Structure formats: structure tokens, C-alpha cells
């Protein structure tokens, strides 16, 4: 398991190449998710985190999930992100697809609503802090119920 929080622009394909590059013969399934900064009214996003604490909280959440997998990678941008750039990339490698899909979805729901990040959107009208939607919170609650 690796968790990388970075202020630098990253390329999902390059990270996928590295992730798949370490060939493990039991690997049959790799699920990924890339979260992108949408354009339209948004001029940029700004993401803030709480160094060390954020990594620690993500690691604590991810560890039991990583135990169901062959490998897990989480990359998350902080700082200013422009439309079209990747904000987050999660990849899960498993023997079979069910574990890989479940891991990526559960982690994304967690990262969206419960990991220590704060996100601000800059539009022509000014900047707004984004907080989780009711749907995000409902998805998370559903996972907690099925996971316990």
C-alpha cells in the first residue's frame, strides 16, 4: 500500500504503468478511479490538507481494505488544480475483480467525505468551500453498514 499526497500535477497513465509494472503472478484484476477537475464555471480548485494527520487517517482507513488486495495505491493532489487535471487516483490490484471494485469504490467514498481535505472552488463569482453532498454522505453510510 502506498499513499502519496502531492502538490504536483500527475499523470494517471504514468501511475497506472508503474502500478501494473510490478508483475505479480496472482494478479487478475486492476480497478482504478481518476477524479478530474471539471471545467465550465470553475477556474481552478484549491485543495488543502493537514500534513501527517491526513496521511495517517487515510492509512488507517485503507489498511484493512489493502489486506483484501495484492496492492493498493492512492495519489491525491493538494494546492491549486486546473480544469482537466487529475485530483485523485486510486488503483487496486487483486486476484479477482469483486475485491478490486469494492476497494476503489469504498476508498473514493471515504476520500470524498471523510478524509482530511478541504476543497475550494474559484469561479468568476469568487471562491466557495465545497462540503460533502447529502448523496456523498448517504453512499458512505451505506458502505459502513455493509462493511460491518
Amino acid at each position: 500500500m502506498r499513499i502519496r499526497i502531492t502538490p504536483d500535477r500527475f499523470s494517471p497513465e504514468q501511475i497506472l504503468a508503474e502500478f501494473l509494472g510490478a508483475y505479480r503472478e496472482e494478479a487478475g484484476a486492476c480497478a482504478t478511479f481518476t477524479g478530474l477537475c471539471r471545467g465550465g464555471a470553475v477556474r481552478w480548485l484549491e485543495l488543502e490538507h493537514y500534513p501527517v494527520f491526513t496521511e495517517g487517517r487515510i492509512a488507517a482507513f485503507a489498511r484493512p481494505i489493502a489486506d483484501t488486495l495484492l496492492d493498493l495505491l492512492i495519489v491525491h493532489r493538494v494546492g491549486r488544480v486546473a480544469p482537466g487535471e487529475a485530483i485523485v487516483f486510486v488503483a487496486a490490484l487483486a486476484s479477482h475483480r469483486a475485491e478490486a471494485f469494492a476497494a476503489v469504490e469504498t476508498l473514493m467514498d471515504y476520500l470524498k467525505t471523510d478524509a482530511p481535505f478541504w476543497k475550494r472552488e474559484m469561479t468568476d463569482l469568487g471562491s466557495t468551500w465545497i462540503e460533502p453532498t447529502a448523496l456523498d454522505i448517504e453512499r458512505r453510510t451505506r458502505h459502513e453498514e455493509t462493511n460491518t
Partner: protein
Amino acid sequence: MARILFFGRLRDIAGCAMMEYAACASLLELREALARENPMLGEALDDPSVRVAVDQAMVGREAPIDGAAEIAFMPPLSGG
């Protein structure tokens, strides 16, 4: 002295990301002291959606903070 950290919109309201502050015995006492200096901040910190970490561990809203070096106030989280 303790280091007080503000994240997200709380940073905007506090006007800073970090302040050094005289030690308080409890979070309740700290929030009251901060509210006296900045009533808008006091109101924002009273919101039950605000979470608190003391020395990098999540704590309840009334936790003792005697001897704590770092107290972080965190509004609802939003990553990804």
C-alpha cells in the same frame, strides 16, 4: 502555549491558518476564549459538524487539552 490550526472555511473566518495561544484546560474553554476575540469564529466553531484533533488524534468536542501542543479545528471534509 498551544498551536491552534484552522482548516477550510474556518481559516478564512479566523483570518489565519495557525495561531499560538495560551494553554486552556478544555476545548470548551478554548472555544469560549476564541469566541470572545472573534464572535464569528466562536459561532463557526460551535457548529457540531466541526471536528477537532488534539496532537493529531481525533477527540470529542469537550475533551481536555491540558498540555496539548497542537489543536486543529476541521470543518466538514471534502477531498477527491
